[in-house]
């Protein structure tokens, strides 16, 4: 009896490992704001109202959600630009899920992950959900000159 149970479990587990998937792809278009003056504000939305796009795909049938955060503020040596001076906005999606970050309004980045999108009904069957983003940066009035770099992380998580 035990032998049969184990064989069945193998048969269930192995195909699941082979076909169930969770995918997050970006177009890897980096956020290059170029040269900016003190107090200047700039928006990156070069491609018809957006700058880059993220595609999420899941075949597990579970609810998934997308988060975004800064790994560290824009930094140049010991100098940093506050995280809240860099903002993101979801400009378009082909999904019908929830947008807890507020749809189509700018939201400041944070070092803690912020919810961008929660999948809606039928969005865990392998269909790709595309999300387009634009970004905005305001240079503080008091800021050391220099080249500042940061890393933005998108995280796709499933709820089990």
């Amino acid at each position, binding site marked *: 009896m*035990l*032998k049969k149970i*184990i064989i069945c*479990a*193998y048969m269930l*587990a*192995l195909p*699941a*490992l082979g076909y*169930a*998937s*969770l*995918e*997050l*792809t*970006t177009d*890897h*278009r*980096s*956020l*290059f*704001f*170029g*040269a*900016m*003056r*003190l107090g200047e504000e700039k928006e990156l939305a070069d491609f018809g109202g957006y700058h*880059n796009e*993220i595609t999420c795909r899941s075949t*597990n049938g579970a609810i998934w959600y997308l988060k975004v955060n800064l*790994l560290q503020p*824009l930094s*140049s040596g010991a100098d940093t*630009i506050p995280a809240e001076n*860099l903002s993101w906005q979801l400009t378009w999606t082909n999904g019908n899920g929830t947008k807890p970050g507020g749809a189509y309004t700018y939201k400041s980045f944070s070092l803690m992950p912020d919810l961008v999108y929660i999948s809606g009904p039928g969005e865990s069957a392998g269909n790709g959900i595309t999300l387009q983003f634009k*970004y905005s*940066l305001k*240079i*503080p*009035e*008091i*800021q*050391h*000159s*220099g*080249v*500042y*770099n*940061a*890393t*933005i*992380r*998108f*995280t*796709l*998580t*499933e709820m*089990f």
Partner: protein
Amino acid sequence: MKKLTYFAGALLVCFLLYAQAEALDYKTDDISASVEVLPTFGISLDNLNLYFGLIQPGSTKILGEGTFFNQIHCRSNSGRPWFLKAQVVSLSLMEKPYKVPAGNLKWKVTQCTGSAQPAGGYDFQSLTEEPLLMYASQGDDDFGKDVVLSMQYSLQSPSDAPAGTYSGQIVFTMAESP
């Protein structure tokens, strides 16, 4: 032996299911962000002409009495200390050779938005023909803070000054400390 095989098999299935759950837990992708904050270093004055009008010999006239006459804006974000100096370049009678002593022309800072105090405080200071320190930056002044000095000017006409029109220049110099 048979039981051991079943046990090992059960363990393997548990591991595979656990591995599946872990593998599907989350995915991440990173993109980079960059910006160059341009250097700023500059000085500007909002009223360049110190016109004292008519002055009786031996009398004194103040420009900007009560508030200020003009404002000097200094801004630098290089991270290096800077200073502001002033000097007078000959206040002379135009019709014949006669110079008003440089010390008869004075300046006074009435307000300052910088992190430091003006070098001469908030009292009148005599100008000289050599550059005189007005302000030395401190703290946020070196990182782009707009330092505004509101100025008054005073001119005392010498009692023996010949009648006529006098002209001269005040030179303000902003420079980084070497």
